[in-house]
């Protein structure tokens, strides 16, 4: 039994299909490990009993043709799940139980997976360390008092600690790739429009995208294959031919042209990141890829652009949390007073900060100087990538400018916190797919990730490159189960 949680998703699927394991055995194993791992605080809402029941039902009438047959899975608490509380990590949705299911999670259940619980995240996905969650910070299983990254911190922690075989996160500016990098796991942010946003609590609509977080590239490809569907309920969903990513996954990337953008050598980047990147380039060469120097000239403007566009959209997206219809409500003397108290008490500091920034940049008199200018720069950033992709098939960069930091280390310095997203944000602004794979450790032994950025809709290509490099890198996560007494 103890081996079960150490297995990858692909192994578990194989073992259930060949009836070496039952869904109940697998589900119980992950539930037991999750229960022993409360100190990580990865879960906001547990659905263990229900999951075990469902596993039993599955075993009674197993459908082994499914892609995720009887596989237990916990998901980020940003996905609305029918009849199970969905909080977005916020007090304001503390008591919110959806009557509907997000398209992405529905796709997962349709393939036979079983919901084990809802994973912690930064409040409304606004954060890079999971410290903004109303439900407390999450421990990185790599080391005590280390952040797991954010906003999908509960997800990265749970996958790395093997509380769930695989999971999904959402990525608006790096919220899948940065936590994957911090925990030695694999995280894919798909092309904007690849996965439906229907039923996902919105942060910044033009940037939000759901994606898989896994222990390896193959698992990641399998889940991407399940979650990516065209959805008429999301007007920004794109109807393109989707690959069977896991079946079409190949390690042969000979002759692939991989670009190295010079602008990603940012000032003050730690040497270990620089070294990791160099190592990554060597790995890519070893795989037969051709390395080409490229320029993405507007990279410097990506972070400021992001911190205008994302808060602007968020300020409007979060207006619906007003205490009138659902969620938390504070009593007030009148309507305005109720609004003010509800939103002051219901939202945490970081969310309030971003609502204020967003409201400011959209205000008359500032709109042109901030929001409109940011939209123009966003276009330039996209053009940079378009130009680069005339020469290369993919782009290789570090995932983050540092390894995971200590809880509390950056809480009072939002700008330093925002800098975490410097390599991931341009990808969201351009709507491109990006994957982070673990590629090494820093001096403290903390994992570091490399990011492979692809052309729009070219997930298969970056998955293949990641798959090939993964083998060469042969990364081993060093997790001691320190939190299990």
């Amino acid at each position, binding site marked *: 039994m103890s081996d079960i949680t150490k297995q990858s998703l692909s192994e578990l699927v194989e073992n259930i299909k060949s009836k070496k394991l039952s869904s109940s055995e697998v589900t119980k194993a992950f539930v037991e490990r999750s229960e022993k791992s409360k100190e990580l605080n990865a879960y906001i809402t547990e659905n263990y009993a229900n999951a075990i029941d469902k596993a039993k039902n599955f075993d009674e009438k197993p459908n082994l043709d499914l892609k995720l047959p009887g596989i237990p899975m916990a998901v980020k608490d940003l*996905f*609305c799940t029918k009849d199970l509380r*969905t909080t*977005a990590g916020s007090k304001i*949705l503390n008591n*919110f139980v*959806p*009557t*509907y299911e*997000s398209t992405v999670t529905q796709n997962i259940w349709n393939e036979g997976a079983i919901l084990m619980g809802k994973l912690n995240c930064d409040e409304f996905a606004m954060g890079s360390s999971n410290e903004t969650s109303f439900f407390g910070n999450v421990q990185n299983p790599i080391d005590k008092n280390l952040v797991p990254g954010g906003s999908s911190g509960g997800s990265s922690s749970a996958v790395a600690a093997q509380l769930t075989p695989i999971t999904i996160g959402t990525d608006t500016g790096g919220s899948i790739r940065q936590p994957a990098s911090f925990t030695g796991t694999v995280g894919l942010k798909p092309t904007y429009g690849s996965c439906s*946003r*229907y*039923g*996902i*609590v*919105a942060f*910044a*609509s*033009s940037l939000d995208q759901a994606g898989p977080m896994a222990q390896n590239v193959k698992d990641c490809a399998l889940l991407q294959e399940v979650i990516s569907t065209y959805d*008429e*309920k*999301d*007007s*920004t969903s794109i109807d393109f031919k989707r690959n069977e990513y896991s079946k079409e996954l190949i390690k042969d990337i000979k002759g692939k042209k991989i670009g190295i953008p010079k602008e990603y050598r940012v000032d003050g980047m730690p040497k270990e990141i620089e070294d990791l990147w160099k190592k990554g380039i060597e790995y890519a060469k070893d795989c037969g890829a051709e390395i080409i120097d490229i320029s993405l000239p507007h990279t410097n403007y990506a972070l400021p652009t992001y911190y205008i566009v994302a808060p*602007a*959209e968020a*300020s*409007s997206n*979060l*207006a*619906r949390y*007003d205490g*009138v*219809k*659902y969620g938390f409500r504070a009593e007030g003397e009148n*309507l305005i007073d109720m*609004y003010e108290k509800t939103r002051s008490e219901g939202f945490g500091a970081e969310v309030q900060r971003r609502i204020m920034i967003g*409201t400011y940049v*959209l*205000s*008359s008199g500032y*709109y042109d100087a901030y*929001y409109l200018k940011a939209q123009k720069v966003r276009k330039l950033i996209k053009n940079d990538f378009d130009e680069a992709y005339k020469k290369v098939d993919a782009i290789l960069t570090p995932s983050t400018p540092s390894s995971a930091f200590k809880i509390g280390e950056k809480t009072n310095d939002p700008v330093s916190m925002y800098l975490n997203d410097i390599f991931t944000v341009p990808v969201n602004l351009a709507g491109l797919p990006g994957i982070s794979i673990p590629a090494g450790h820093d001096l403290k032994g903390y994992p570091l990730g490399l990011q492979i950025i692809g052309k729009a809709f070219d997930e298969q290509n970056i998955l293949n490159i990641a798959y090939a490099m993964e083998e060469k890198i042969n990364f081993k996560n060093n997790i001691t189960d320190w939190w299990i007494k």
Partner: protein
Amino acid sequence: MSKNKSEYLINRHDNQYEVVIGLEVHAQVTSESKLFSTSATKFGAEPNTQVSLVDAAFPGMLPVINEYCVKQAIKTGIGLKAKINKRSVFDRKNYFYADLPQGYQISQFKDPIVGEGKVILDMPNGQKEVGIERLHLEQDAGKSIHDLDPKNTFVDLNRSGVALMEIVSKPDLRSPDEVNAYIKKLRSIMRYLGTCDGNMQEGSLRADVNVSVRKKGSKEFGTRCEIKNVNSIKFMQMAIEYEANRQVDLIEDGQTIDQETRLFDTKKNETRSMRSKEDAHDYRYFPDPDLLPLEVSDDFIENLKSEIPELPDEKKKRFIEKFKLSPYEANILVSDIETSNYFENVIKKSDVKLATNWIIGELFAALNEKNLEISESPISAGNLSKLINLIKDGTISGKIAKTVFEQMMKGDKDPKKIVEEKGLKQQSDPKALEALIDKVIDDNRDKAMEYKSGKVKLFGFFVGQVMKVSGGKANPQLVNEILKKKL
């Protein structure tokens, strides 16, 4: 106040003021479902029974544009002879209110679906063209109900998300009468198109009225005030009259007009300040990232053009040219689609001139009296047509026809049957009439003598007597002829 040359001017001391009016009409799109959700739009449903998760702005819910509403807006644009914008953008208008679940209204700000167009008004002193600035699509908000409870406000979200067209006119209107004509014409066009039912009682048509005044002859516009959400033509006219006079009084008093939003109090018949320009909301418009820009092809627009029926202006022209109607008659008959359809059905098988007179005269009067729309007329077009044919072929006189018409108004009966059952058929047999006339002359020999000696006025007396004796059934033409001969 004076109305020289039908101009609407306000006189104060030696000054004459012209009133400048522009309207923002909110017209509910005729559509089974809402602009961005599949909820029903039926009027009068139980509160909060036509609300989807999208309309109530639940977390993670996304808007999806209703293609039918887009078609309706474009059709309306075509009806307004307006430019159709092949690319338009939905923006969010952000503000907090209890009946606005999203915390923003999805509207079109910079890039509306329809651009400049025009509406032609038929005024007593001739035609007047009113410019259309734009038409855009937007969501309606829900309804706050403040009068059901002393302390609480109730919210009904049935309207939340219903599609509206906001039709913005240029400041081309100059009088309450023109506003009346403009709203009626706009409503008529939309009813012809089937894009808005124009029902003001049900709130399908409301308007924000922009009013300013300026000295006659001045080219500059005065400072305007916007009177919000007026829901009847009568109230619009009253509000304009009050507001224009208020502004003139201020100017005459040496004061300036504050640009502000005002409310019309229908009980007190006055406008009141709602909020000043300084207090105006900052709506923080920005393109809705949940919706891609709306793009329509030339083919899409051309297809819609082919669905456009003959509109009132064209119909009027045809009625005048083909049926030789006067502009006055044509105007009345084309004013709404039901009337013109009724008219065209009647004249399929009967005389145009008689039909025109009977519809505009008898039928309208009778419907008015019973407070009925033409669509509710007890007399079908087919039966009116039969009645007219009975007059035309001499079966009954015009006078008898009125009696038959009254019977028909009580229930749609075939006029032929009424004539038969009541024996109202006209007496047109010359021999029988001669006998009748002989008797009348015999009975009034003295009068006949007077007539013969030159008192020709007495002719009418004899006609009357004959008609009386015949019970009104005598064919008046024949009576005339025979009488002349006999006398």
